[in-house]
């Protein structure tokens, strides 16, 4: 009884899975959806903002205080992953607009950044897996 059923049932299942797969493929599977477009644009914007941030004079001064080569830091922005860039850009958003407290907080953000760069330089990237090592 069961054996008799197995063939038609499995045939039906196989067929229905094939049909299911087809319907998914034809339904706009290869259109790039808007969410993807926005995510890519967001990543580009993040990269530009972080680069612009590192280019600021006050930020460069803090980096010099920590003995970090600003040009090298700029270069390394490109090796940061999207998630990491988003994290930095997000922490930049939290900076208050007022000028008074900015110094201390800029220092803190740069500090995080410097830590990342140093661990990157020391080859400790297994600690921060989101930093792409350059070699």
């Amino acid at each position, binding site marked *: 009884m069961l054996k008799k059923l197995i063939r038609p049932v499995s045939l039906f299942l196989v067929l229905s899975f094939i049909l299911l797969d087809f319907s998914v493929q034809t339904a*706009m*599977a*290869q*259109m*790039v*959806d*808007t*969410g*993807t*477009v*926005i995510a*890519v*644009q*967001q990543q580009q*914007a993040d990269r530009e903002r972080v680069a612009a941030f590192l280019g600021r004079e006050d930020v460069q001064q803090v980096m010099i205080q920590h003995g970090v080569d600003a040009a090298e830091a700029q270069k390394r922005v490109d090796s940061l992953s999207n998630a990491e860039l988003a994290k930095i850009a997000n922490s930049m958003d939290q900076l208050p*607009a*007022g000028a008074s407290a900015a110094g201390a907080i800029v220092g803190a953000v740069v500090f995080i950044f410097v830590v990342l760069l140093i661990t990157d330089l020391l080859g400790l990237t297994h600690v921060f897996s989101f930093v792409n090592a350059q070699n």
Partner: protein
Amino acid sequence: MFLVLLMPRTEPKASPRLIQAGSRMIAGLLFSVLTIVLSSCSLLPMGPMPQTPGEPDSAMVSGVPFFAQDELQCGPAALAMALNWSGIAVQPSDLSPEVYSPGLKGSLQSSLIGSARRHGRVAYPITGSEALLAEVSAGHPVIVLVNLSFFWYPKWHYAVVIGYDQQQGEVILHSGLTAREVLSSRVFMNLWRRGEYWGLLVLPPDRLPVTGEEVAWLAAVSGLEKTGQRRAAAIGYATALERWKTSFAAWMGLGNSRYRLHDLEGSAEAFHQATLLEPENGMAFNNLAHVLAEQGKRQEALAAAQRAVDLGGSSLDTFRQTLEEIMQK
């Protein structure tokens, strides 16, 4: 609160030594509780709320109906007020199944956002008093998440800010059982800070927030598109293009939502505009190729698909599939 709970636990059957240790522990606890209390209510300075220079001193949004909330139903009530202002006639009780989580005895921010989208409205989060005051003075009510108590005993609450007066130092809200409740701005900012300054605009898709930013608005509109509100999404993208005329993502979104609305001609036009804005970006050519193929323009479709593959990028696999699919037609 903590001390009341702790005292009876340690006192009854304690030996002298234990009492000593206990009292030391209590002293330690008292100290840390005091520290927590004091640090969490480190008072914000008196005076007006931080505001962008040049904005009006006072403002009041008209046309925001008040719904008194049922117990624990501040989420549905706040959303209903914002939705009614935006032109959607709903009652809090209609929204409750979409918004309120009985297990949590409250409503999640993401549920408010999801529910606003299901009603074809753009849910746009804002943060900070500058944005809040600018939006209210532009005539947009703002749903805010506040913590009426401290973080270690949170009492979360949603209310709708409908006005403010910087001279008087006042914020006006529809909140709980009170319409037009007047709070001092200092108290309001303390409560709102514990809600991490979370605010939400619920806007018709043709109305941009004055503090709106391109990517954030488009992300909010693409949420509408995902919810299946394609017509509203198309309006949202078109509205974005009025302010950000060179927005590649807005043209892409417009193309995608028109495609889903079976407006092939309009969709092709939008993707075409996107290719003009970013001729080095394969994504627009890829989507254009699909629409052209459906319009029966095989040669043009092939050319566009080939162009996408040539340009490459992170979506190259998708572009290759597109090309193959069109070649097989």
